[in-house]
């Protein structure tokens, strides 16, 4: 774990007694909620990550519905001189016209297929407001009496985000804590490759919603068809970091068999392209090709991305932390929380690759009695212990605890999302950085419908989660930049590849070293960079082979066609010259061409050309 990444751990340690929730309230940027556009994406991401993890753990093929709705639409009505005449607000089905201080509800509402018409009367004047849907666009019309006024829609700044899955659901008793308490849950302290790591994500999203709109979170959960759907409306008590239950009831419907539905109302900004929800979901499917995701955007357009693989990834195994993987702060905290009564027992039981003998040896080297109570180790002793551990040669951690995407499935995911001519994936063997096993997988797609006139598209993933921000400081980008892509017949712009290329890099690890708690970029450890570079180079070599093969085939085709063009001409000339038969000569030449091996490709025996010949050409031009 990176030094910078200590924040949450230390938060946990130091802030627990006060309130982690309160701290987050003031420092929400630390978790990636620093601006409205990013926040919207973070909410989706946290919920989707949880859904995928839950389904995977329960060995259920995930089916996730994601939607973003606009709860309130505001339209500005403008006078001819551009000043505001008034506003029309539509919120939860209620429409209000505001002119100055006066507000009025419509006297009549007419809804047709693609059209909504609202009629208002204010004083003596009648108003008509019409929303008409054309293809994907909406057209507005506002009439005061008989004069038409200009209308424009104010970009939405508030969204309802919902995510529904078909996972195992959460038992009734746990629902408030899972969603309404930060740092609750099994994920905290790691130990296993998973999407979330700190147990902060979804409750942070709840907190963000609460802070920006004041609206409670709405949760539906069902664990089996035989059980009811439990519905909760929750808030977080930020000073105590405890859930407040506003409403709690059992419903007969709402979720089909089992699963969770979360609905949050947040302040946000809806982005297109690179940082859009849609892009995030598409990328999610690339590395989770076993998931089916349905997305409904704010305009009501629904996209279904069906799964391409009907098999869940192998389950990743839990491992205890490797001694080299812990920071001092974590070691101290673990020593306080352990159930072991001796320091050697603590080392043996709470870490992997530490046997009783090794533990005693380490204690002795650190000058600590193996039998001393770990709860009573003071800061100085912990530091000595940590320094000893750092310099001690432990066995490498077990390497079979990870669950890679696998080349075949990565490839299937890429194929689903990109119509490319060539797709190659490479999975590296498991490697280790600072006591944590990790595995790098890359995919390269080329050609087909990929845009030729843009920089290559780079997809970054950590434990099957797309990373969309802070690309510049990410190990993935740094390793891509270390490669001279021109060696592999790929154009570059600056140090980045350019052209119809998609490069996807995935890191699977028990503990991904993120640059920050927002989990946006992978820290560029040399071991990680090296593995990424090797994987990229291997994939690039395969791409290069493909490209040169394609070029050769192309050249061969061109040569073939060159002779196809010349054969009729040659046949005719030779027939004339030899008093022969054009068709016969043509057939002979074509037969030879068909055989294919007759063409001389090299320029051997090319007639010498030198200065003299060029010179004498002029000389004999007239003679």
């Amino acid at each position, binding site marked *: 774990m990176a030094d910078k990444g200590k924040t949450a751990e230390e938060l946990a340690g130091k802030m627990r007694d006060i309130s982690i929730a309160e701290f987050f309230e003031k420092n929400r940027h630390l978790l990636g909620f620093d601006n409205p556009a990013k926040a919207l994406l973070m909410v989706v991401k946290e919920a989707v990550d949880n859904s995928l993890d839950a389904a995977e753990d329960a060995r259920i093929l995930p089916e996730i519905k994601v939607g973003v709705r606009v709860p309130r639409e505001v339209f500005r009505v403008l006078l001819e001189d551009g000043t505001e005449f008034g506003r029309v607000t539509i919120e939860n089905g209620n429409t209000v016209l505001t002119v100055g201080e006066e507000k009025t509800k419509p006297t009549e509402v007419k809804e047709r297929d693609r059209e909504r018409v609202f009629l208002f009367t204010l004083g003596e004047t009648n108003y008509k407001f019409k929303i008409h849907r054309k293809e994907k666009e909406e057209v507005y019309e506002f009439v005061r009496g008989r004069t038409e006024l200009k209308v424009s829609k104010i970009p939405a700044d508030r969204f309802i985000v919902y995510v529904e899955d078909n996972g195992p659901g959460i038992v009734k008793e746990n629902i408030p804590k899972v969603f309404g308490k930060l740092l609750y849950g099994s994920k905290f302290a790691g130990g296993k490759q998973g999407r979330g790591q700190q147990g902060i994500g979804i409750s942070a999203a709840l907190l963000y919603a609460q802070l920006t709109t004041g609206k409670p979170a709405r949760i539906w959960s069902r664990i089996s068809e035989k059980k009811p759907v439990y519905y909760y409306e929750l808030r977080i008590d930020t000073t105590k970091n405890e859930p407040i239950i506003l409403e709690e009831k059992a419903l007969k419907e709402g979720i089909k068999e089992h699963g969770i539905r979360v609905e949050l109302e947040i302040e946000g900004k809806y982005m297109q392209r690179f940082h859009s929800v849609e892009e995030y979901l598409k990328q999610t499917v690339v590395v989770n090709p076993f998931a089916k995701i349905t997305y409904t955007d704010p305009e009501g357009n629904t996209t279904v991305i069906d799964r391409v693989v009907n098999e869940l990834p192998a389950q990743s195994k839990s491992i205890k932390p490797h001694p080299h993987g812990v920071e001092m702060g974590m070691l101290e905290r673990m020593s306080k929380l352990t159930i072991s009564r001796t320091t050697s027992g603590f080392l043996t039981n709470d870490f992997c690759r530490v046997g009783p003998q090794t533990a005693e040896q380490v204690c002795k080297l650190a000058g600590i009695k193996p039998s001393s109570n770990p709860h009573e180790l003071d800061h100085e002793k912990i530091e000595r212990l940590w320094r000893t551990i750092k310099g001690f040669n432990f066995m490498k951690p077990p390497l079979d605890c990870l669950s890679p995407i696998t080349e075949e499935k990565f490839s299937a995911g890429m194929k689903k999302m990109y119509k490319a001519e060539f797709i190659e994936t490479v999975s590296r063997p498991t490697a280790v950085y600072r006591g944590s096993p990790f595995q790098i997988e890359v995919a390269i797609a080329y050609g087909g419908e990929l845009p030729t006139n843009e920089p290559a598209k780079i997809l970054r993933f950590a434990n099957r989660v797309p990373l969309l921000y802070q690309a510049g400081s990410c190990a993935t980008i740094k390793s891509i930049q270390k490669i001279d892509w021109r060696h592999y017949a790929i154009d570059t712009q600056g140090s980045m590849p350019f052209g119809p290329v998609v490069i996807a890099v995935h890191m699977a690890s028990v503990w991904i070293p993120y640059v920050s708690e927002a989990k946006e970029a992978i820290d560029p450890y040399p071991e990680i960079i090296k593995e990424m570079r090797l994987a990229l180079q291997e994939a690039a070599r395969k791409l290069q082979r493909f490209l040169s093969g394609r070029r050769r085939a192309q050249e061969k085709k061109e040569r073939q066609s060159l002779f196809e063009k*010349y054969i009729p001409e040659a046949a005719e000339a*030779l027939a004339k010259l030899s008093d022969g038969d054009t068709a016969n000569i043509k057939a002979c*030449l074509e037969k030879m061409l068909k055989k294919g091996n007759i063409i001389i490709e090299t320029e051997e025996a090319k007639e*010498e050309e030198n200065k003299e010949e060029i010179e004498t050409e002029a*000389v004999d031009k007239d003679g």
Partner: protein
Amino acid sequence: MAEKNTESKKKLVDFGKGLVKQAEKGENPAMDVPIRTLSNVNYSQKTGMLSLGTKSSKRFFFNVAHVRKFVQTAEVAALAKELLTVDKSLSLRQAFYAIRRTIAGTNIDIVDDQVESNKALEDLELITDISREQLHINANKLGSIAGNVIIKDRGIGGKEILIDWSKQGSGGWSIPSRVEHLEFKKVDAKFVIYMEKAAMWERLNEDEIWDKLNCIIISSQGQATRGIRRLLQRLSTEEKLPIYILTDFDPWGFYIYSVIKTGSISLAHASERLAVPSARFLGLTADDIEKYALKKHIIRFKDVDLKRIDEISKYAWFKDKKEWQKQFELMKQMKGKVELDALISRGISFVSEKYLPEKLKSKDFLD
């Protein structure tokens, strides 16, 4: 003539049949093309002529680098065969148009410019050992002649007519592209002056120098055409007239002289019919420039000119000639050229009244 046509035509047809036979056997059709570069040209001290060496290269149809030239050569061969069949002639330009076309449905032209068709014809001459004239393809006529000579030529419709080179007026008699059929009836002139500039010819013709010195004056523009070279050779060998050459003082002028005298590199195979080993260089020489104070008319050389001096001075037929090496050396020192026209600066008729008579009298020639 007809007999010769038949013989040439048979050669062409056999050439074509050979290629077709290769195709029928499933072999890559190939033409044997003698190489026409300096590396395959020999200079014989004994004959004073260039001749083509034995090196040749195969031109294959199924070779990416050859196919275009192969088809061009086949095209000109087919054209020549047709011309011989109907007993008609075309100019080089017309021959270019006769084979020029775009292959249907492509953007490939059989030939892009006349240089390509000309080269294909030269190759055909070498492959078949038939001269271009015998293939009924001629260069544009170019060049004028005047002198005390009467010849017999063929008029329109093949009627024989006598032509007096002394009665051709200001334009002179224009030299045809083929001179084989001319007969020298009465030759009073004692020698021949060939000059590279048409303007100089006109000057000398106006001065009637051919009458005053009793010689023949001939010009073209730049390099002598094959027709002129053949005519010079016939005047030299049949009438035993000395041939003198007048060119600019620059490497290109010297090469014009060398082509007339020993033959050219790309037509080395035709030297025997074209070269005039007895030809002498009259001027301009470095000594002329000194003697007639022409230095102020020097035009500075460009890099390409200097490079050309180095090339030419190393040619076998110049290499061992001290006198010529001295000229090249002085030329390099002067760093510039002097054109024939510079002589006019000494007086309008200076060339005919002073320069030529003095040079001829003192036998101031280079060999």
